[in-house]
């Protein structure tokens, strides 16, 4: 996002480096790519990286499909929806995964401290905030309720952006909210109480989000895709093993306060895409009616 005049186009320039633009969401999940850029994992593979923060899939997916971005970051469910609608995209590398530990994950369903809701089971029939309807949030929360022995059918999901959830919870506009870091830590600090760990409940070590590109690029420049995936994987690995540096790099592209940065739970960044967990997500999505047809995972995943 340096406003360079020359647009990134994914083709090698005269100096032998390739300009690559990546659409990301400015949240914790993409810390590795920022870190990897700083560490030179990309430049040493001849990739001149430009990271462009956007608010969500609304801007990233069209950007990737049209070639404005060479790569993008998105959650798995969104990409599976895209796949069922024949959007020409392909996953290239893992993005972020659940820690798999109940009680210490980077996303959870929280309620007000004095709420009568004690467990996921009690969410049945309640109003629950998720950031996007018919997406990874509601399907995994339903699974949590189901696993806890409740009936998810009566849950009323409300779409509210993560930043507004704390207020909606406080004002009683919703009974519970599915939040991720740093909102999770922030609401906990303000007295909210987690009652369900939906990523953990959905599948063990759930892959939440991935990096993807357009099928056009995989055909025209498989070499670049391979180099990018390598660099990402190195970044993921580095991030996973250097949490302090992750917390430090967060300060460079977010406004998360010092104390939240040190206290919040970091997600896992494995290099392997957990295919079983994605299949589980696909099943959940299908049973909840998120997709009309089953996504073709072999076409989507690398």
């Amino acid at each position: 996002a340096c406003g360079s005049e020359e647009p990134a186009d994914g083709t090698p320039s005269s100096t032998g480096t390739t300009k690559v633009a990546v659409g990301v969401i400015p949240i914790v999940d993409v810390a590795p790519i920022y870190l990897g850029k700083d560490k030179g994992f990309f430049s040493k593979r001849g990739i001149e990286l430009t990271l462009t923060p956007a608010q969500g899939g609304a801007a990233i997916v069209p950007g990737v499909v049209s070639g404005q971005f060479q790569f993008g970051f998105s959650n798995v469910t969104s990409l599976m929806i895209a796949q069922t609608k024949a959007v020409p995209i392909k996953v290239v590398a893992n993005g972020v995964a659940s820690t798999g530990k109940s009680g210490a994950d980077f996303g959870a369903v929280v309620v007000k401290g004095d709420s009568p809701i004690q467990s996921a089971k009690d969410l049945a029939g309640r109003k629950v905030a998720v950031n996007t309807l018919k997406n990874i949030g509601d399907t995994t929360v339903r699974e949590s309720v189901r696993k806890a022995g409740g009936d998810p059918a009566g849950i009323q999901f409300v779409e509210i952006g993560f930043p507004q959830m704390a207020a909606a919870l406080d004002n009683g506009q919703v009974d519970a909210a599915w939040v991720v870091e740093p909102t999770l830590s922030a609401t906990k600090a303000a007295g909210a109480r987690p009652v369900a760990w939906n990523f953990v409940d959905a599948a063990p070590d759930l892959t939440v989000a991935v990096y993807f590109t357009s099928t056009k690029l995989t055909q025209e420049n498989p070499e670049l895709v391979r180099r990018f995936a390598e660099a990402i994987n190195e970044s993921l690995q580095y991030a996973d093993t250097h949490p302090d540096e992750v917390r430090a790099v967060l300060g460079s592209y977010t406004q998360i306060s010092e104390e939240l940065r040190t206290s919040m739970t970091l997600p896992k960044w494995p290099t392997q895409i957990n295919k079983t967990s994605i299949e589980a997500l696909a099943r959940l999505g299908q049973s909840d009616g998120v997709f009309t047809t089953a996504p073709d995972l072999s076409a989507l995943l690398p």
Partner: protein
Amino acid sequence: MLIAILETLPRVGVVSARHLPPTSAVAAAFVEEVRKRAFWVALGDTLTSWAIGLAIAVAAGVVLGFVIGGIGPLREFTASTVEFLRPIPSVALIPLAVILFGTRIQSALLLIVYASFWQVLIQVLGGVREVDPVADETARSYGLGAWARFRHVLWPTALPYVMTGVRLAASVALVLAITAELIVGTDGLGKLIGTAQASQAVPAMYALIAVTGVLGIVINVGVRAVERRLLFWHQSVRGEVIPS
């Protein structure tokens, strides 16, 4: 007074201070922000896209407004299309903007121009209809040509409307500049707001929002000053200068 209300609302607990922080906290965050270079760069980016977008929108709105408004049949011919295109929200054009321009400034410009163009156009169309026929007939009877009539009759008559249109467009352009930055991710204040939002940095977010508000005031003061110079002869300005 407004500041006092905003300060007391959270203090007395009408809304939680965590969600709408008192002005003092916002002010502190503001001081924090202005120390950063990134803030000034972002401000510059926002103003750049605002200015370019507004300039294009005003120029296009004024030119097309006079052409369409001045030619009766053309006006009728385009009316339905204008009414159709006008309510299409710029936010619905975001995918289109991203496809065409990615997160480059042109994306923001597309959204800004699309939204503020209509503001100017509608006002100009309104203004062109208001030409005093006696004034226009005077000009015609003295053999003034089309261009002279435009410059000396049509333009001054429509000018108050144009100014209102510019005032409307200026703030719509600002709104869209911030929105584009927020949602598409082009550079500027909106991007900072989005980051602050996602980071739960509530006072910083409000500080940045307040900056956009202040920008709005500054822009309005500017346009008003221009208006006072250009429209000194108009009843609306004249009525205030001469005591009565």
